[in-house]
């Protein structure tokens, strides 16, 4: 087997997986805390990409735009939570899913209205262009940046959840909402802040992605499936599991595309279905 090509595909898989991670972490956090599966999550990811495009063209600074678009996306997520999602906490999960689905439709269409029907893309900023040579293989700085950033996000989220006061509240509500309320923790504040963090991270993912892959209508529909697959294979509600699984899914699908292009997506979906059947809680999941 061609080791060089394998290495390249591995790196591709890792940065793809990092994108899946940025998409999945929000979904997992939001589900863990609110027990809602946010169908609109991928739409926010894509929103990050679009916002990045706009901010970058306006400010010319990659990093500034990154920060602005992530935060804005987070705020939009909060908006959706406060105005709409909050009203369905007491309804059956089916209606919650439907609501987030409706929100996804609306967000997707708004994106089309604001940014048009054609995909938008950005080029990688000059200081991140270029390659580094590892063992005879050229790996782009940008993809390395993404992988490293993804890992940093993982560490940060893990640290925040497990070591900060806010994280403690999150874990309390996650465990037992009623008990948390008895302990004077306001679950709604936790819900909203979780929505902010989760959606902002998705926005970050989209913002980073636009430099590599054009962002346009239909992207959200495609990504949501991968987000679900990751979250479901990993198990709804586990941060470490989600990170590992995201990378795994990225690498497996990348290798599959390289080695077995005739059946690449088939493999991913089959694995997802298989895991779900054998272990419905997911590989790392709680219940």
């Amino acid at each position: 087997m061609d080791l060089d090509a394998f290495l390249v595909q591995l790196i591709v898989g890792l940065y793809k997986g990092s994108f899946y991670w940025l998409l999945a972490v929000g979904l997992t956090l939001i589900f863990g805390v609110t027990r809602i599966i946010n169908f609109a999550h991928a739409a926010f990811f894509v929103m990050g990409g679009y916002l990045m495009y706009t901010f970058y063209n306006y400010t010319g600074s990659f990093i500034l735009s990154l920060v602005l678009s992530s935060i804005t996306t987070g705020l939009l997520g909060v908006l959706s939570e406060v105005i709409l999602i909050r009203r369905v906490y007491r309804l059956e999960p089916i209606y919650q899913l439907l609501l987030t689905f409706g929100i996804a439709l609306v967000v997707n269409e708004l994106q089309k209205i604001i940014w048009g029907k054609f995909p938008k893309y950005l080029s990688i900023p000059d200081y991140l262009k270029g390659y580094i040579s590892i063992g005879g293989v050229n790996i782009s700085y940008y993809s390395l940046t993404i992988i490293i950033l993804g890992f940093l996000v993982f560490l940060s989220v893990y640290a925040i959840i497990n070591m900060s006061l806010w994280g403690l509240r999150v874990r309390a509500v996650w465990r037992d909402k009623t008990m948390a309320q008895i302990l004077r923790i306001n679950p709604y504040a936790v819900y909203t802040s979780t929505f902010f963090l989760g959606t902002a991270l998705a926005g970050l993912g989209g913002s980073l992605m636009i430099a590599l892959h054009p962002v346009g209508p239909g992207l959200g529909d495609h990504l949501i499936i991968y987000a679900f697959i990751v979250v479901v294979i990993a198990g709804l509600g586990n941060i470490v599991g989600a990170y590992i699984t995201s990378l795994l899914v990225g690498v497996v699908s990348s290798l599959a595309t390289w080695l077995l292009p005739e059946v690449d997506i088939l493999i991913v979906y089959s694995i997802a279905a298989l895991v779900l059947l054998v272990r419905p809680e997911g590989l790392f999941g709680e219940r």
Partner: protein
Amino acid sequence: MIIRDVNLALIIALTALLLLVPLTGDRFYIYITSLFMIYSLFALSYNLLFGYAGLLSFGHAMFFAVGAYATALFTLKVLRDPLVGLVVGVLSSIPVALVVGFLTLRHTRVYFAILTLAFGMLVYALLVKWRSVTGGTDGLTGIPKRGVIIDISSPTAYYLFILTFFTITTIGLYLFIKSRWGLLVRALGANEDRLPFTGHSLLFIRLYTFLVSGLTASLSGSLYAIFMGVVTPDIAYWTFSAEPLVMTLLGGASYYLGPVLGAFIFITLTTIVARYAEYWLLLLGLAVIAIVIGFRGGLGGMLVSILYIVRERSGVWGRWRYSRLKI
């Protein structure tokens, strides 16, 4: 002849109305009404699962696609006849329903929903990747309307073909729901926790519901294949699974004919309104949001509420008691 059942009366009335369409001779109306009937069947099949049994599925397009592709493959490769092809298409849903159903229906409702998404996309992937058989992203073309047994090439002919199946299936499905089998399906949707303690197997009831729903969905898919003459993999993509869901919601999931009303609204929005308002999907999304937050009964629910108000104010419906208005 007085039909005491409101729904049957409505179905007969609707059929009568639909019979008038080909008389207009307008190809566009014939086309769009045919599509309406096909989508109605798809939505009705969906609501059996969703509204009556309480099972939300994101993979229902799987049945539609299986029926469509089975019909296409059969008529193109084995026997050129739409009627036989239709039968094959419908029957092809049986193994799919049994296998997928057996694997997915033992889980809780939320996992079932996600599993159906995965399986639905699995079918999509299969259709895209198995180029030699399915034609890949290009799909299959040239599905015949003229066959050895029947010839439905003219618009009037294929319209009546679709209408026949539409009426028979709509009535048949209704009789199923009113039967003892249907009662158990409704019990499932009403309180599935209680059901095992009334001596019934949850899995068994879910399975046969899934089967009937699948058969009907595949029928609509087969009709679609014959009608369009072309099938492509996008009819298996998950967003297509969402369409009957939206139609059901729009029309009202708790009314038998709700999905039909929803299909009507949906087709109107997608074809007629879409010409003037490019962003009809936005309207759809807003409608879904509005329905979930406010009008969970959909348009059907709103209409029924209006009927009640009219009755209260004017005593017009006189002899009809509330309990009679069973939709």
